[in-house]
């Protein structure tokens, strides 16, 4: 069936550097999401994105975070600069609509900030 792909599965960077997490959503989906899961904690909503714009973001979505989907390609989460507390697994999701279809999740990218 359709899948959301996240590349890479694991990324290690030094604190203060910039990182971009890539998500390849299902091709006809229109809504895109990022969730964050710190080790041992629950998965938490970061942001959703539709029609080129952020619809809603949580308080976890700091000023250092940004999302975009240029030219219908990857949906990306950029963190600049990174901090130690950004270490987590980041899950991307996409859905065709928000009323009749639940988001389909990717397998996550584990980000380790050293």
């Amino acid at each position, binding site marked *: 069936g359709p899948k*959301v792909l996240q590349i890479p599965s694991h990324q290690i960077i030094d604190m203060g550097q910039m990182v971009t997490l890539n998500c390849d959503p299902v091709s006809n989906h229109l*809504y895109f*999401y990022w*969730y964050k899961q710190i080790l041992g*904690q*629950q*998965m*938490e*909503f970061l942001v*959703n994105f*539709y029609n080129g714009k952020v*619809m*809603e973001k*949580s308080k976890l979505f700091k000023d250092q975070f940004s999302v975009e989907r240029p030219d219908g390609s990857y949906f990306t989460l950029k963190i600049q600069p990174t901090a130690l507390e950004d270490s987590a697994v980041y*899950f991307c999701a996409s*859905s065709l609509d*928000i*009323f009749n279809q*639940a*988001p*389909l*999740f*990717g*397998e*996550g990218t584990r980000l380790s900030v050293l």
Partner: protein
Amino acid sequence: GQQVKQSSPSLTVQEGGISILNCDYENDMFDYFAWYKKYPDNSPTLLISVRSNVDKREDGRLTVFLNKSGKHFSLHITASQPEDTAVYLCAAGPYGNEKITFGAGTKLTIKP
């Protein structure tokens, strides 16, 4: 505070038995309720979901029960099998499920 709570971090059930997973929520505005299954290093996969206009939905061995007045919903898995062993996440959200809040998960183990 946690808006969606799974009070049992783990549950062990004998093969063939009924697994009952519970979830409590706080937000009256939640209208969408779902259960996801997650294996280690895999993506959360939607199992079953309901809107608040129904209090029960069945799909094969899975049944979701929704108690809106009690702000509680549960997942029943009948004839539990070893392959049901996984972490189960409950999730809830407003009418448009564009912002789903997840519980911390319950690790279900089915013993042969």
